[in-house]
């Protein structure tokens, strides 16, 4: 599917040097390849004796390309077969590469053109956010959109992106809501200060309509102190609401608010032992501030229908301190403070303290007492373990910088609803159309929408509503939804879009468009890349690219088994995703060589992730640069996200991991297994190891052909469990053997040795990453015809000993990027 097969274009090779090259190649294939891939046998369905000297079509081209790839990788011929000399091999690789390059320029490719591409859900979200100045972190307009089809892991492939009635309906709804949120005709909201002091729980007849968390119960009481202690974990008895807003239905306006909490952490060290579950003695207490929407919620969900985490902080101070944040809150949301790493649910805490810590004198009066208010309150009051202590919570805002917002002005300019008329509405639609299309609208593109608005006006629809309907229509029109980059060499305006969707996942800003309009963008690309990468919007590129390249969504869709307690307790998913993103960002920002992805002896860890990796001494919940010099880990191969995304949350398979390593790091996707192969059945009863099973599997020649390339890559990672923790044994207590032999014959015993072998193959990795980046940049799969451009980029990168930032620049300056 990757390459479109074209009708043969006949070519003549006339020069004598090429004839000699052809003869050499034929002889080489005959001697080294055709015994298994010839008239007698066609292992792996490959046959080379019928390969014509002249490359007549893309099919031939691909077969030759594969030969070159295999020779380069050193995977063919297999090690137990006679090998060509290094010199012969190199010579044939060179001949074939030249032959292929020559064929490229002669074969007419459909390639080079990224098909008219719809914005994917991710880009749509960022685009709506940037165009209308909305906070789309909190409100995701594309939340309910159907999932995009991924091609080669990427969800921005024009061929793969489908448009449907269902999606169009979503566009209508999203556009209507986006415009509603953007419209701000009211007066500039004034800032209000709300204050809530301890106690945070209430009693008596006024509490009738209040959500449960405000009410006194068996595990909540009104303290006699000027502060209130939180005992439970998170929303299980470890959270407090904000009374000043609960009956108001949250804050009246969206915007930036200041939240202040006066708090302390007491009882960090305790001697309750296992009664506190997995709480690590001495850990700081994590206070989380969240914005919650209680509208339409029910009690069993904790009276929260939606929530966003606003901030977290680790507390070790025993004396009260003010903590302050400026955060974005949506209208209708209210703040909530939580004890994120509280040891246990409050209810369970009381039960365990009176059973497992029953010998403590403070609990004596309550032992044997039936579950009652007296018991609950008594035990919690006597308890000396970790408590999050809160005095006061303040909320102040919104702090509005510009009113009305950028988005409002994009829709209405400075017009008031009663100033709108048929003439200025048409003008508004033109301005809005131009902005949202990222290019001047074509003749006839905007007019139908203007006529539609005109007809609504004459039907008697009020002007404001008519204009809004028109803007909605613009946000649902193909001019907005599709990136129309034209054909052939990109014009400057199209280039601006391609560049900004690569680095920002959203439309070009004014600077880019001005440069493009003046015809100066192409000549200032490196400067612009630097500027754009230093803009915070570029995190969309790093996070989204990494997410797609390494299939990090596997982690969310295959949630790890609940048996991995620490995974959930320590919030490892977030930490490990951030580790890999930060690592990529670090390599990019410092323009480090690509080989860092294979062998960097450092990474970005917080305390929990470090402990997960068996590294002691890291303080704090924030990611920080940590040396891995004394660890088995290094580069992507040792990162939690890489290891978790290549497993399924429950167990690991060398085959699945092997394919993952091959695809993600070496750029080679093994063919799917032929139908009806015997399956490999995991067996934890200890009878047969996975290694033995795979060895048996490989006795079958057709299986062996692929598995000798796949399995070693996976076995190298066998010491890592399904969430990337180190293990020396399987569940059945059988030892793990992570040794293996690459198709080239190079063998390794440990993951560290494997990493060195991979580093020897870093050229292959560089090519792989370059191709992935290029594919992401273009929104299409690469074709054989793109190979010369990739070769050129890699050669230049090597020439200047370049790093990741250089690579981005080379891609942006390459021919495929500059044309369509």
């Amino acid at each position, binding site marked *: 599917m990757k390459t479109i097969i074209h009708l043969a274009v006949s070519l003549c090779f006339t020069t004598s040097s090429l004839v000699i090259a052809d003869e050499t190649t034929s002889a080489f294939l005959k001697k080294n390849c055709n015994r298994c891939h010839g008239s007698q046998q066609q292992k792996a369905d490959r046959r080379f004796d019928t390969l014509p000297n002249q490359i007549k079509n893309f099919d031939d081209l691909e077969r030759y390309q594969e030969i070159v790839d295999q020779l380069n990788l050193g995977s063919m011929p297999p090690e137990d077969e006679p090998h060509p000399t290094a010199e012969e091999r190199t010579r044939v690789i060179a001949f074939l590469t030249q032959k292929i390059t020559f064929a490229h320029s002669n074969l007419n490719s459909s390639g080079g*053109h990224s*098909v*008219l591409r719809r914005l994917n859900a991710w880009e749509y979200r960022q685009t709506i956010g940037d165009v209308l100045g909305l906070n789309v972190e909190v409100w995701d307009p594309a939340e309910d959109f*159907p999932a995009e*089809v*991924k091609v080669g892991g990427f969800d921005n492939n*024009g*061929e*793969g992106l*489908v*448009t*449907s*009635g*269902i*999606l*169009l*309906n979503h566009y*209508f709804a999203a556009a209507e809501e986006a415009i509603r949120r953007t419209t701000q005709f009211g007066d500039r909201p004034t800032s209000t200060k709300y204050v809530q002091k301890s106690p945070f729980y209430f009693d008596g007849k006024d509490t009738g309509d209040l959500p449960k968390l405000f009410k006194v119960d068996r595990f909540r009481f009104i303290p006699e102190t000027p502060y209130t202690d939180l005992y439970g974990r998170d929303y299980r008895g470890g959270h407090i609401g904000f009374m000043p807003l609960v009956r108001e239905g949250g804050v009246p306006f969206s915007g930036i608010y200041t939240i202040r909490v006066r708090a302390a952490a007491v009882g960090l060290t305790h001697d309750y032992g296992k009664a506190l579950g997995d709480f690590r003695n001495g850990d700081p207490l994590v206070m989380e501030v969240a914005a919650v929407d209680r509208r339409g919620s*029910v009690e069993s*969900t904790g009276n929260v229908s939606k929530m966003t985490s606003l901030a977290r902080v680790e507390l070790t101070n025993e004396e009260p301190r003010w903590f302050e944040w400026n955060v974005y809150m949506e209208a209708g949301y209210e703040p909530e403070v939580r004890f994120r790493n509280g040891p246990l649910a409050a209810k369970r805490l009381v039960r365990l303290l009176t059973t497992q810590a029953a010998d403590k004198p403070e609990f004596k009066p309550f032992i044997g007492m039936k579950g009652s208010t007296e018991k609950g309150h008594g035990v919690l009051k006597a308890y000396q373990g970790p408590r999050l202590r809160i005095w006061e919570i303040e909320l102040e805002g919104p702090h509005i910088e510009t009113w009305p917002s950028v988005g409002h002005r994009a829709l209405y300019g400075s017009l008031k609803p009663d100033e709108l008329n048929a003439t200025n509405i048409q003008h508004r639609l033109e301005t809005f159309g131009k902005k949202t299309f990222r290019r001047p609208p*074509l*003749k*006839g*593109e*905007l*007019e*139908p*929408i203007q*006529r*539609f608005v005109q*007809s*609504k006006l004459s039907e008697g*629809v009020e002007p404001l509503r008519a204009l809004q*309907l028109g803007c*909605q*229509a613009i946000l*649902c*029109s*193909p001019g907005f*939804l*599709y990136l*129309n980059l034209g*054909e052939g060499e990109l014009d400057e305006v199209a280039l601006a879009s391609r560049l900004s969707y690569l680095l920002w996942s959203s439309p070009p800003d004014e600077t880019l468009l001005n440069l493009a309009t003046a015809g100066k963008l192409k000549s200032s690309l490196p400067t612009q890349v630097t500027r754009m990468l230093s803009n915070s919007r570029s995190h969309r590129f790093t996070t989204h690219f990494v997410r797609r390249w390494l299939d990090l969504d596997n982690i969310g*869709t*295959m*949630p790890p*088994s609940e*048996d991995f307690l620490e995974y959930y307790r320590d919030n490892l998913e977030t930490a490990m995703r951030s580790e890999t993103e930060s690592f990529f960002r670090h390599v990019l920002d410092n323009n480090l060589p690509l080989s860092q992805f294979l062998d960097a002896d450092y990474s970005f860890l917080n305390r929990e992730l470090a402990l997960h990796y068996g590294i002691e001494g890291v303080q704090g919940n924030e990611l920080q640069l940590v040396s891995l010099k004394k660890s088995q880990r290094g580069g992507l191969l040792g990162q939690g996200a890489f290891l978790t995304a290549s497993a*399924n*949350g*429950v*167990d690991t398979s060398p085959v699945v991991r092997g394919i993952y390593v091959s695809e993600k790091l070496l750029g080679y996707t093994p063919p799917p*297994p032929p*139908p*009806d192969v015997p*399956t490999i*059945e*995991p067996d*934890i*009863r200890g009878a047969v190891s996975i290694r033995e099973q795979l060895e048996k599997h490989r006795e079958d020649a057709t299986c062996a052909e692929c598995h000798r390339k796949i399995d070693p890559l996976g076995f190298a990672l066998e010491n890592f469990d399904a969430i990337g923790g180190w293990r020396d044994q399987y569940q059945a207590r059988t030892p793990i053997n992570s040794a293996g032999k690459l198709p080239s014959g190079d063998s390794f015993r440990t993951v560290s040795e494997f990493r060195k072998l991979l580093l020897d193959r870093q050229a292959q990795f560089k090519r792989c990453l370059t191709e992935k980046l290029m594919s992401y940049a273009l929104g299409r799969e690469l074709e054989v015809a793109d190979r010369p451009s990739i070769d050129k980029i890699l050669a230049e990168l090597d020439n200047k000993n370049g790093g990741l930032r250089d690579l981005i620049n080379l891609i942006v300056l390459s021919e495929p990027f500059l044309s369509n």
Partner: protein
Amino acid sequence: MLGQRHPKPVFVAFKETRSSNELLSMNPSSNLNRRQLLRGTGIALSLPAFESIASGNPNSDKSPRRLVCVGNHLGFYPGNFFPKETGKNYLPTSTLKPLEDHRDELTVFSHLDHELNGGHKAVQGFLTSIKKEEAAGFPNQNISLDQAAAEHVGSSTRFPSINTGIDGGTDMCWTRAGVHVPPINKPALLFRGLFVNSSQGEREVERMRLKHQASVLDALRESAVALNRTLNASDRDKLDQYLTSVRDVERRLQISNEWLDRSKPESPIDEVLDEDRQHIDEVALFYDLIALALQTDSTRVATLETGLGFRTAELDLGSYHGLSHHSKSEDRIGQLQIVESFLTTKLSDFISRLKEARVFDDTLIVFGSGMSDGSIHSNRNLPVLLAGGGIKHQGHVVCPAEQHKRVPLSNLWLSVLHWFGSEADRFGRSTGTFSPMSIGSSLNNG
């Protein structure tokens, strides 16, 4: 192969499964495909029995045909699902035991699948036979069985289909455009859709919205045409998708308009409120709501999906995904058995419910999974059973297991579609129909 026009389907009715299998294995070395083989033997072929329904228009039927598709992500442990015996007198396996009351009205199949690989990623092919990545290569993309049936129903009911699921479901339903139809996972929302009428005021707002949208669609079409003129052929194909979508929305608008002022049936049960429920309770609740929806003819096509995240902790078991990786551990297989029996018990209750409502004989239920044994992530030999529909059920039908004789599961799906009244001449990867219980005996195929 895809480009070829398929000849008119032939209906295959096995009189007795065992003998048919013997016939099928007569010529194992043959290179003929299964269909040719069936034709060649000339024995297994017979025209379907006509059913005693007169009218050719299902829309005017007094008792219309209905289809319910139920899918589970993590498969059913084969050792506890498939009976050892063939035919009507099979001994119930532990997973089928809860269905004993209905054994005469169901058929279990062995050795049916779509020849897909990919473990979890291929489960979404259960009702489609095609992975979404491959959808572009098929004329109807990866449309699922339920959506194909829903297209046939059109606007005859308020909802062409009702797609429900626990949590996120398992990506089971897909439209002709290759787009996933997400399941409704809130019972209260479904209840409101089925039974709660909107107020006069709300209806007026909705009417205005529909009216505006209709004229917006015209404008968008014109705008697209202007863009279209500047594009090359491949880009135009892409924009065609947009234009098709516009037409699709127009069609939906029309249906919405038609139903806007018709009042909804009265609910025989108290309003289902929005509250946090256990997954195990939601399964029963969704089945009940589906039964009501069928009974009130609010829809004729319904689905229910249970996914990877089904909370087995509510049955005091380990995590479902963890259990499915049983790795032959007896303990885990034992726990899996509890989940799987739970699912078939709820199915059995649903069947009883439909019988009480006297719609069971007009309702065909498809039940199964796009995975067989979760521990090996196999998408082969899928657990599949059919129930109801007033057809001649056969107990346990064992299809040929050999590679070149296998029956594509799509053939069964095609027969189901024919039973439903569709005249489609193929579905997904079908090579013909497959109907050992004469289910292909649709009204239109004489």
